[in-house]
């Protein structure tokens, strides 16, 4: 019984990480209609840059090392995302295939540059003492505290995004842009600038996921492709461009992965894709997607 509870909790904590990463992907798609194939690269670049800031501070044993790494990773990813939108994607707005190909190329270049610069050694952040170690939970016993923090971060991101989209002026403009970009522009709103802001926000979420993810699991080459794939699956299952849908998709995929690992480890990978195929067959727009 407590084993089942642990596995469900593992699924939820993994889902939290998937949600943080995939929400950025979904956000960018929702407004910009860009399938950002470089989303995984943004995860990776934030992890490495964050680690470069984190390690020397950690060696000096200062308490804020991890937080500094987190901030650096997120900030770098946001700037990187904005730069990509300004320099590459902005002037090919509306050409989906071209943008997808450009972002694929970009992700390959970024991954190779990171490999050349940082080498192949896997890296891992160590969470500050306050959120490291284990917490006693009723019915489960000791459970890694950091994984619980992951859930907290995901909930905060979810609520934050919901507030941003539904309660702020920027959110109103973003939602208007989803429905009719031209009309929004005609109302005097600087649509390209909003595009840059959304791209920076989406990339920052990938970066947040990168540092959190690299604290829970080793960060190494190949994580970019893995998280891009997961983001794609999560938003396809949940529904493109919907924050709630992304959350539902992440929970389904995270639970499927962990329960699959416990029950039939060899075929657990397939379970994820079975869910995706089922959703595509029965509800192609995703569980909470708009038709």
């Amino acid at each position: 019984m407590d084993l089942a509870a642990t596995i469900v909790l593992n699924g939820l904590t993994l889902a939290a990480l998937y949600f943080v990463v995939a929400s950025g992907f979904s956000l960018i798609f929702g407004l910009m209609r860009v399938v950002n194939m470089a989303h995984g690269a943004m995860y990776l670049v934030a992890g490495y840059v964050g680690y470069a800031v984190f390690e020397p501070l950690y060696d000096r044993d200062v308490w804020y090392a991890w937080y500094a790494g987190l901030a650096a990773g997120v900030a770098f990813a946001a700037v990187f995302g904005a730069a990509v939108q300004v320099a590459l994607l902005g002037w090919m707005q509306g050409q989906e295939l071209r943008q997808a190909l450009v972002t694929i190329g970009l992700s390959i270049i970024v991954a190779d540059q990171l490999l050349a610069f940082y080498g192949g050694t896997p890296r891992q952040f160590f969470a500050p003492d306050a959120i490291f170690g284990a917490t006693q939970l009723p019915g489960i016993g000791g459970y890694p505290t950091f994984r619980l923090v992951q859930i907290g971060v995901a909930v905060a991101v979810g609520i934050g995004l919901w507030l941003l989209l539904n309660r702020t002026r920027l959110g109103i403009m973003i939602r208007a842009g989803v429905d009719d970009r031209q009309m929004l522009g005609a109302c005097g709103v600087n649509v390209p600038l909003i595009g840059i802001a959304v791209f920076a926000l989406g990339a920052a979420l990938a970066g947040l996921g990168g540092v959190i993810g690299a604290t829970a699991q080793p960060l190494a080459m190949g994580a970019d492709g893995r998280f891009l794939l997961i983001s794609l699956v999560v938003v396809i299952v949940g529904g493109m461009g919907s924050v709630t849908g992304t959350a539902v998709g992440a929970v389904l995929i995270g639970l499927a992965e962990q329960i699959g690992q416990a029950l039939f480890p060899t075929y657990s990978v397939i379970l994820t894709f079975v869910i995706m195929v089922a959703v595509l067959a029965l509800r192609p727009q995703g569980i909470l997607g708009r038709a």
Partner: protein
Amino acid sequence: MTIMITRRAALLGGAGLAAGSLALPAIAQNAPIRIGGLTTLEGPFATGGQDAFRCVQMELERINHTIGGRRIEFIRESSNAQADVALARARKLIEQDNVDIILGPLSGAEGIALRDYSRTLTGKTIVNGSSGASDTTLRNPSPNFFRFSTDGTQWMAGLGRHIHGMGIRDVAITAGDYAFPYAQVFGFNLEFCRLGGRVTQYWAPLGTTDFTSQIAQINRSNAGAIVIVHGGTDGLAFMTQYAQAGGSKPLVGGSIMADQTMLSARGPHRRVMMGMLSGGPIADIIDDPTWNDFVARYRRRWANEGGFASPSIHGVNYVTNLYGILAGLRATNGDLSGNQAAFQRAMAAAEVTAPTGAAVKLDHNRQAISDIFLNRIEERGGSAVVVAFDRARAVNQTLGMPEAQFLGLGSPSRDNAGCVA
């Protein structure tokens, strides 16, 4: 701009070489021998692959890239531990780079793919890098594939017996779901189950990074020890999450777990790895002058260029196989004519000494018979090192069992993991 010049220079140089060899076919004997190095510079074993090239480069520099009066040209290529990628890169080395010999690959399933590829080649030889699936040479061997390193089953020689001798009767085995861990688990189970031990196996695909549910199951089981046959980032993820979950069972590592590729990464996994037992073709500390000399040279060469504190298992395996190639080339004076027949005969008969000081010779399948070490991870001078405390000499591929009987057990797989009483 720099790239332009380099490329132009390279083109000119290439054209010059081509013209030269056309004009004077008689100097073919003095043309360089081209060896293609194939390892994993991407994917879960990227660090191991990097170290493999370090060690090979060091040994080639030592002989000044020359053997039997011929220069050796070493061409590097990388895969990501997946068989299809390794095969594509091997084809590229043979068909485009026109290499004579391939040294590689690193990982188990890749080895089987390249063994099959080598059978289709004429006048080319593939010599293993560090891949350790047993079937690569045991079943359906290829005449063009040589392996001077021992395989995953051999590496476990003596470990199952040792764990049973400690009074442990139940173990949980967690392993990657592909050819190399099958071989390792097979080797462990063969001894452990025969003595009456019981095992529960947990498989996970290569590339798994979240093991928490598996760890939760293992920690609740009545296993007296955990045998961990993961490596690279998978191994690091497992050990980190095991440490975070507060695990405290005695640990037994597969050969690529208890290695510098794991111990040199920072993190809480180091604490739980103290005292871990393992078996394999190397250790950091082996009481042998050949090994001490090799380690000293490795440290001198690579200390300031990203090298480990001590050479990794992959580096040592690649070098052992390189020694096999060099022994063959030395015996034939670098003569690769006649579809490499004389060279292959010389390699099959070669007896080399591995960097660890272990004597290596090949069996009728061109598979190494060599020494295996029993190791324990200890703290020495503030860092974790793998210390050899026992050594089994001349372990063959069937762990001393008659070959027909061993083959009768079937091919190692997740459903046939060698646990026969």
